[in-house]
């Protein structure tokens, strides 16, 4: 039977564990930081020498760690893009906005084990010559902000933060910054604008890649909470051992948020790709299966923005055979390993690691109407295709789900969504379009039937009306 593998949440979820410094130290806390700061320079075969900071950056790259915030981009590669020659300060921001619907995993780290995040951040900052860093936490987590502030005070008092950290002459400050209820603050450039005290209007890339022109137009690293927490473990266990967890190109552990129509919704930590979507939904160790008498209809596999997968779908995945040859194999939906590459090969993404399960009692029209309303509400409004399009999508799905639609609305929704994606400043445009494109394409009959039924009902009521005259 598939099992959880607790690394990041190992302590947080053990009985009696508390978020204070004393408890963290009792569990080996800040040893990874000591280890990092004592890193020796490394000689490379080509005669080059890596500084201790470069060694850590190299290790993070070698660990294979991929960003846990949504895009799954290599953390080490992201760090390597940082402009270190500009002479400007380098900033690091921890993205604790946790706003992708379906996602509730960063919350676990922030509230239960804040020091683990702080340790990961101090190591990451040291490795990247960062002197000032921020934790951008969503406004609706006031307790989380208090817990973090308390933990930061404790870390300063112990010399893990502030001036001359652990006597090695390194200075770092980390501050908590609170958002105020806008989803778009999770998008890294929107987050940066918000941290600058402005509306969270995302910036256009190029030229505003955070690694070059980020916070205050200085080089900036933005990483997710879980990504930064993982850095601590990479240092602690070494990149080779970390990379042994999970599967090739999908290393380490990952926190999965499971919600919707399962018996036991909740968060689980797994080795990436070692557990399948079906196991996550059905195993007693995880979701515990669907509600009695229900069958699976669809799975939203990586946060509300990811493309929906339909029960019974079979995907073509490339696999390396025992002979080292790549072959294409058929993989049914529930046998998809839960990792970055498999979900991408299935035409969707593992995104923020949030799985929302839909059973046969659910209307796909209503479900999409719910999601589209979210995107209409959260568009920042800068780009016309997104601002107007997201609103039209919401109106179109709303009228379909309220018996006021037309059969052609399915086509109309696809048309709008196609005209949003790829035409906007930030990836929110895709986030709004993808659910629509996938829902309507995969459940077209249902959308058309809703529209046709509404048309028929209207026709009946008008002919009934004429009759009375």
């Amino acid at each position, binding site marked *: 039977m598939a099992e959880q593998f607790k690394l990041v949440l190992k302590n947080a979820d053990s009985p009696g564990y508390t978020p204070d410094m004393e408890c963290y130290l009792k569990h080996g806390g800040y040893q990874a930081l000591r280890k990092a700061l004592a890193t020796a320079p490394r000689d490379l075969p080509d005669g080059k020498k890596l500084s201790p900071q470069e060694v850590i950056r190299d290790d993070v790259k070698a660990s294979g760690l991929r960003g846990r915030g949504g895009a799954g981009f290599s953390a080490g590669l992201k760090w390597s893009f940082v402009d270190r020659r500009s002479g400007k300060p380098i900033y690091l921001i921890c993205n604790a906005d*946790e*706003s*992708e*619907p*379906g*996602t*509730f995993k*960063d*919350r676990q780290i922030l509230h239960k084990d804040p020091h683990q995040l702080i340790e990961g951040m101090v190591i990451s900052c040291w490795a990247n010559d960062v002197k*000032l860093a921020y934790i951008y936490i*969503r*406004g*609706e*987590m*006031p*307790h989380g902000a208090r817990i973090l502030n308390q933990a930061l005070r404790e870390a300063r008092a112990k010399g893990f933060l502030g001036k001359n950290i652990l006597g090695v002459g390194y200075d770092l*400050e980390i*501050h908590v*910054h*609170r*958002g*105020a*209820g*806008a*989803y778009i603050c999770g998008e890294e450039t929107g987050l940066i604008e*918000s*941290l*600058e*005290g*402005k*509306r*969270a209007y995302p910036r256009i890339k190029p030229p505003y890649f955070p690694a070059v022109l980020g916070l*205050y137009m200085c080089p900036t690293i933005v990483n997710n909470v879980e990504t930064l927490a993982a850095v601590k473990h990479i240092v602690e266990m070494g990149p080779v051992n970390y990379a042994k967890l999970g599967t090739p190109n999908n290393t380490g552990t990952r926190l999965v*948020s*499971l*919600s*919707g*129509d399962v018996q036991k*919704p*909740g*968060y689980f930590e797994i080795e990436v790709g070692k557990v399948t979507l079906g196991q996550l939904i059905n195993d007693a160790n995880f979701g515990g299966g669907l509600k009695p008498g229900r069958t699976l209809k669809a799975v*939203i596999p990586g946060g*509300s923005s990811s493309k929906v997968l339909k029960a019974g779908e079979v995907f073509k995945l490339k696999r390396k055979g025992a002979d080292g040859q790549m072959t294409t194999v058929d993989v049914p939906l529930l046998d998809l390993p839960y990792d970055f590459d498999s979900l991408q090969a299935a035409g969707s993404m593992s995104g923020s690691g*949030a799985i*929302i399960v*839909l059973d046969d009692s*659910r209307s796909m029209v209503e*479900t999409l109407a*719910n*999601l589209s*309303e*979210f995107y209409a*509400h*959260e568009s920042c409004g800068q780009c016309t295709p997104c601002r107007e399009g997201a609103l039209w999508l919401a109106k179109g799905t709303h009228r379909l789900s309220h018996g006021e639609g037309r059969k052609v609305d399915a086509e109309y929704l696809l048309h709008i969504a196609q005209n949003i994606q790829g035409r906007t400043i930030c990836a929110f445009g895709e986030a709004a379009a993808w659910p629509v494109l996938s829902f309507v394409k995969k459940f077209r009959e249902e959308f058309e039937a809703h529209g046709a039924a509404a048309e028929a009902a209207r026709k009946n009521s008008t002919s009934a009306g004429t009759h009375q005259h």
Partner: protein
Amino acid sequence: MAFSVPASLEAELDELTTHYPVKRSASLMYLHALQEHFGFISPEAIAWTARKLDLQPINVYELVTFYPMFRQEPLGKTQIKVCRTLSCALAGSGALRDHYCKKLGLDPHKHVPQTTPDGKYTVEFVECLADCGNAPVVMVNDDLRGKVSLAEADRVLTQ
């Protein structure tokens, strides 16, 4: 009553300003603190923040109108935010919200915050509160409540 920020709060905010190399960055944190103290963001609070951070009032006002958590009028003593988004909707958050609105005489079709005439409660439909595993989720002032039944929803009103 004239608008006045207590010295202790001002000192706290002055310290917060030092967290940022550019003062303007502190504006969201100012607004949070002022809203916590006064219950909402008044034009005076906007002007005060602008003065403190060397900004024009419009720079602060545009934040108040952009970020959903900031309010320009006083809200109820108990603020009830019911999550509207998918996982909670699947678990019946629509019914929870209707229940609150019916009990308190508010319009269930409005998503914006609505306050009872006696100023006791404000009910609002909000987007995902990042606790979807405990759906349906309701936030009561600063506290999250998960797996909220109608009976539990009523308890919020009697406490």
